[in-house]
């Protein structure tokens, strides 16, 4: 366990309190469950009331104990309570500069210490799963790509793999390699953006300016290859939409050089900075067992010692042929998550270099004309090509009935697609398992007995993307 930050002397309740260690499970049980009905309605004046999920400060320590049916540790409770205590509730969001999108948090505070946290989500609910049932399988990736909008190619890859699993088609090896390349570049871009916004939230304002600079070079490459800077709709069932541009190897060399230089800058700027270390060491801890129980995956789980990366455990799209490591640490705090994400950028660069060297020639999409449209030039020449093109783009190709679950490792964790088809040309049900949904659910555990100033750091390190949470 790393050194806890020194608290200001004279602080009434927290000066004698140890920083929570990952092993003290009993303290954690206070924040296990948040029962509705423990809140009482209260006149709060005219304000927007778009949800009845209001909360009222608990009025006595017994309330917390009664939530879990366990006794709260007496020493801890009594010594930290003042005579006329009333817990205060702060509402963070949904419009807030540091909540990474429209996340609303109710924080119940005792002084500066957080007692309970209630995340309220749904402010970005777009009904994408219902829209997916109205779009054909070919159009599906336009919809899915906008869920986790910082890693759009991961969404598309998961969706395409799920559809191909039901169709039982194989994509050519070049298409698989292109998919690996694009998804690793997307991971780098997503982590760079995360670094920029997290640094900005913690207070390193210059991070925002520098962090987005390297990302621009990646977005330029994406625009050249896929046509769009974000939400690319590039990885489709059957392969990818277009081949890589002719000079992509030179682009890769220059991108890798730019990103590595930028990464060296960030490591100097952040990781050695004593203020940064104090703000992030020992903050927002999530233990190994909590990660498993709450379904937390991705860099957050790997920071707590859960050695789970879908690319290694259930490889897809040819990942098993590339040589890379999955970094894990054991402390489970915000500092570790920074370390892990920086290391993941380096490993992604390693994979990109391997793809540049080993990518095979060939088709960039499967030859099965029932699934992928024919080349545009063929339409003038061949009647079958015209008919295939017409059928695919109007009615869509039909996928055999069945259900499947396909997961990919997105920048945030395990992104899963549960796809049910009834034999028609549109999905019967598409459920997307977004990694941020589970990560946001673990926020109360992460923030248990932290100071309110740690909320932003812990939330930033969990990297929630609300499009993934609310869909």
């Amino acid at each position: 366990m790393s050194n806890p930050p020194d608290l200001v002397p004279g602080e009434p309740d927290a000066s004698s309190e140890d920083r929570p260690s990952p092993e003290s499970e009993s303290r954690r049980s206070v924040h296990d469950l948040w029962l509705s009905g423990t809140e009482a309605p209260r006149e709060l004046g005219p304000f927007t009331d778009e949800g009845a999920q209001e909360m009222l400060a608990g009025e006595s320590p017994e309330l917390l104990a009664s939530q879990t049916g366990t006794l709260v540790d007496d020493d801890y409770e009594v010594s930290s309570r003042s005579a006329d205590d009333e817990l205060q509730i702060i509402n963070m969001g949904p419009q807030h500069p540091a909540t990474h999108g429209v996340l609303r948090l109710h924080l119940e505070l005792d002084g500066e210490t957080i007692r309970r946290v209630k995340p309220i989500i749904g402010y970005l609910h777009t009904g994408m799963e219902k829209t997916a049932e109205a779009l054909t399988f070919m159009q599906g990736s336009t919809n899915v790509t906008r869920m986790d909008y910082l890693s759009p190619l991961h969404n598309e890859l998961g969706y395409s793999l799920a559809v191909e699993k039901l169709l039982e088609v194989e994509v050519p090896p070049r298409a698989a390699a292109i998919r690996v390349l694009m998804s690793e570049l997307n991971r780098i871009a997503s982590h760079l953006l995360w670094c920029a916004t997290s640094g900005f939230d913690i207070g390193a304002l210059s991070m925002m300016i520098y962090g987005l600079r390297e990302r621009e070079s990646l977005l330029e490459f994406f625009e050249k290859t896929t046509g769009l800077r974000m939400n690319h709709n590039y990885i489709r069932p059957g392969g990818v939409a277009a081949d890589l541009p002719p000079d992509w190897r030179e682009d890769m060399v220059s991108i890798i050089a730019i990103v590595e230089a930028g990464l060296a800058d960030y490591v100097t700027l952040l990781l050695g900075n004593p203020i940064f270390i104090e703000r992030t060491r020992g903050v927002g801890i999530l233990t190994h067992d909590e990660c498993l129980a709450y379904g937390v995956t991705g860099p957050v789980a790997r920071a707590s010692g859960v050695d789970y990366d879908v690319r290694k455990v259930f490889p897809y799209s040819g990942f098993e042929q590339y040589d890379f490591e999955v970094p894990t640490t054991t402390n489970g705090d915000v500092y570790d998550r920074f370390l892990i994400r920086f290391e993941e950028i380096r490993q992604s660069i390693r994979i990109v270099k391997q793809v540049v060297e080993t990518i095979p020639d060939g088709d960039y999409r499967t030859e099965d004309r029932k699934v992928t449209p024919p080349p545009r030039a063929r339409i003038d020449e061949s009647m079958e090509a015209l008919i295939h093109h017409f059928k695919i783009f109007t009615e869509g190709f039909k996928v055999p009935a069945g259900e499947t679950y396909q997961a990919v490792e997105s920048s945030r964790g395990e992104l899963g697609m549960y796809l049910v088809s009834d034999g028609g040309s549109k999905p019967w049900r598409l459920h997307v398992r977004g990694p941020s949904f589970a990560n946001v659910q673990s926020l109360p555990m992460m923030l248990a007995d932290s100071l309110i100033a740690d909320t932003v750091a812990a939330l930033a390190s969990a990297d929630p993307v609300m499009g993934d949470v609310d869909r």
Partner: protein
Amino acid sequence: MTTVPAGLVAAAAAFPEVEFESVLGDTVARASRDEVVGLLEAVRDAGFELFIDLCAVDYLSRNPRFDIAVNVVSVSQSLRLRVLVGIPGTDPQMPTVSSVYPGSNFYEREAFDLFGIEFSDHPDMTRILLPDDWEGHPLRKDIPVGSVPVQFKGANKAR
């Protein structure tokens, strides 16, 4: 009966009514709603500790109408398991899984919100994604997508 992965043999033996099969490479178990909590406890104790997903599917014309799919993973054994539970449309409710996997809390609220399936003994059975005063459960198949007609500028011009 298809071969059950080594880690699940004990659980399969303890629940003989549950059918295990292999679908497109996934291990799928179909259980009834009375035994699903017990099965998941046995499965969790057998090493499947990482909770992944819980979602609902509405097979409109099938009986039972709804399916709940629970996805779990065993990190130590590199195995995935999907447990399917059939829920009738006339009585859409099921015992909660959150006593076994606390992470299913938000997922069950989402299934309630979008499909109307209630999970008994759930600590907080309220809507999560839609506003609290929303009526209906939009992801059910008998409810339309809710699109509004879009008028295009050239729509009324003579072609």
